[in-house]
C-alpha cells in the first residue's frame, strides 16, 4: 500500500496592491513663479531659501504645510497658483510619507513638483511614489542628517543639489 503524507499549504498573508499609473505633469519650458512648500521640519526653510537664492528672476510663493500630516486643500490650492512646486524636506518616516502624498496631489492637479528628501529616506520616498503609480516622481536626495544641524552646513548641502534642481527646471 502506498501512503502519501501531504503537508497542508499555507496562504499568503501579503496584501495586494493596485495603483493606477499617474502621469506626471510636464515641466513647462518657461517658469515664472515657483511655490516653495515648507513642511516646517527643522531646516526645511534653510533648504528652500537656499534654493530660492539660486533661482533669481523667478517669483517665489511661500507655502507652509504640516510635517506629519496632509497639506490642507487650501494649502494645495495656494501652491497651485505657481507654475511648479518644490517641497522640503523628508528626513523622517511620517514627513517623507506626507511629502510624497502631497507632491502626488499637486501632480494630479497638473502642477509639476520636485521634492527633497534626505538620502536615508529617499529610497522609502521612491517606494511610496511607486505604490501610488508615480514611480518617476521628481525626487532629489540631500545628505542626511538635516534636523539639528547648523544653518551653514545645510546651506552647503543644498548647494550640492542646486545643479540637479536647475536641470529638472530646465534652467541653465
Amino acid at each position: 500500500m502506498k501512503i502519501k503524507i501531504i503537508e497542508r499549504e499555507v496562504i499568503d498573508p501579503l496584501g495586494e496592491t493596485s495603483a493606477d499609473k499617474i502621469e506626471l505633469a510636464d515641466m513647462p519650458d518657461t517658469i515664472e513663479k515657483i511655490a516653495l512648500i515648507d513642511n516646517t521640519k527643522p531646516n526645511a526653510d534653510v533648504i528652500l531659501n537656499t534654493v530660492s537664492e539660486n533661482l533669481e528672476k523667478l517669483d517665489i510663493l511661500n507655502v507652509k504645510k504640516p510635517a506629519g500630516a496632509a497639506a490642507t486643500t487650501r494649502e494645495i490650492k495656494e501652491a497651485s497658483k505657481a507654475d511648479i512646486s518644490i517641497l522640503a524636506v523628508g528626513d523622517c518616516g511620517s514627513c517623507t510619507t506626507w511629502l510624497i502624498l502631497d507632491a502626488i496631489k499637486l501632480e494630479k492637479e497638473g502642477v509639476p513638483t520636485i521634492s527633497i528628501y534626505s538620502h536615508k529616506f529617499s529610497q522609502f520616498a521612491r517606494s511610496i511614489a511607486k505604490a501610488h503609480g508615480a514611480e518617476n516622481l521628481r525626487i532629489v536626495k540631500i545628505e542626511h542628517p538635516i534636523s539639528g544641524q547648523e544653518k551653514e552646513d545645510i546651506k552647503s548641502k543644498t548647494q550640492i543639489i542646486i545643479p540637479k534642481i536647475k536641470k529638472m527646471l530646465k534652467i541653465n
Partner: protein
Amino acid sequence: MPNKKNKKIDSEKACECLIEDLIEENIEKNEDRLCELSENDFEVYIDPDVEKISYEFYMKKMTDGLPIIPPTKDRVLKFFEYSDRKPDDVIATIPPRWGKATIEKIAINSVMAGCIPAFMPVVQDSIQAISQDKFNLPAINATTHPVSICTIINGPISRELVINNSTGCLGPGNIANATIGRAIRLCLINIGGAIPGIGDHATMGSPSKYSFCFGEAEYESPWDPLHVERGFSKDTSTVTVMAVDSPHNVNDHRSTCAEDLLDTIVHTASVAGCNNSHVPGEMLVIMGPEHAQLVAGDGWNKTDVKEYIHENTFVPVEMGDRGGRKIESKWIDSDGNVHITRKPEDVVLVVVGGPGRHTMIAHGFGTSSDSVTIPITLKDGTPVDSIRDFKNKKL
C-alpha cells in the same frame, strides 16, 4: 469538489481534494472515496510544521519575529465564520504599501497572530478604525517616532471575549490582549508593508508594537466608560484605537486626596521630548480602579479630572521647542508654557487594572493623530449583542 467522472485522468496532475471538500459535498459513490487522480492508496494531510513555517515566514519578513501559527486554509475558513462580509471585501488600504486589507488577508494575519476565530470582528473593526483619516495611519506607520497602536475594547463583547481589563491587562498572560494587538501589527507589516527599516522607520521601535490591547474595567469605574463618554450606549460594544507612546507608570500609594494624586499624574505627564510637548494632542490616562475610586470619592467627576490634568500638564516653551518641528505660537500660553493637550477632551481617561495604587500615562502622537471609536456592528450597521451574531449572518 471537481466532478471526477468528467475529468480526464492525468497521472501527473496532483490531486487537490481536501477532506473538508469531501465532508462538505457528502460524496455518495464509493469510488469517489479515494480520488482516482491519486497514485496513492492512502493520503494523509497534516498541518505544516510550526517551526519550519515560522522560520520561512520570518525569512520573508512576514512576522514580528515571534513564531506564528501557520495560516492554512482550514484555519482561515474558521475566521470567515465570524465576519458577515465576503473574503475579498476590502476593509481598508494600509500604508505605506497601500495594500488591500481584505477580510481574507485580515483573517490570515489573525491566524498567524494566534487569535481564536471569535476575535475576527474586533481585528476587522480595528483595521477599519485605524484607516480613518483623522487617525493618520500613513504617518503612524512610517514615522521614526516609536508610536504604537493602542486598542481599547468596551462593552459586552469585551467581556464575552474575556479581554483582560484587570490585573496585568497590559500584558503578559491573556490570549485576547496578546493576539488582537499582534494581529493588527501583522496586518500593518504584511498588508501595509510596515516592515521595520523598510516601511516602518521607527528609530528604535517599541515593545508596545508587539501588542497593545486591553478592555476597560467598566464595573470598577466610578465614571462612564470611554464608549459611553463618546456617545454610545453602555450595551454597545466598541473598538477605540489610539496612537500612543509606551505607557509610563505613576506610582502613588500615599496620596489621600484627589488633588494630590492628580498632581502626581500631572508631574509624570509634564515632560519635554514627547510629541505632545511641541505638537499638543491627546494623552491616554490608564487609571487604576483604586486611584479612580479615591478621586471620585472626593467628588470629582470625569470632566473635572480631565480639566485638571489638561490645565496643569505643561512644559516651558524652551523645553518643548526641541521636537520634530517648531512650536506654533498658538500653542504657547501667556506664561510661556506649552500644554501637553490642546483641550480637556484630549485627556483620554479609562479605568483599567487590578488591585494596587497605580495609574499609567501614554502621550499621543501629537496634533496630527486623533483616536477613533467605532461600534462593532454588522455590515448594515446593526450593533451586535454578542460575537455569535456574526455567525450565519452572511450578507
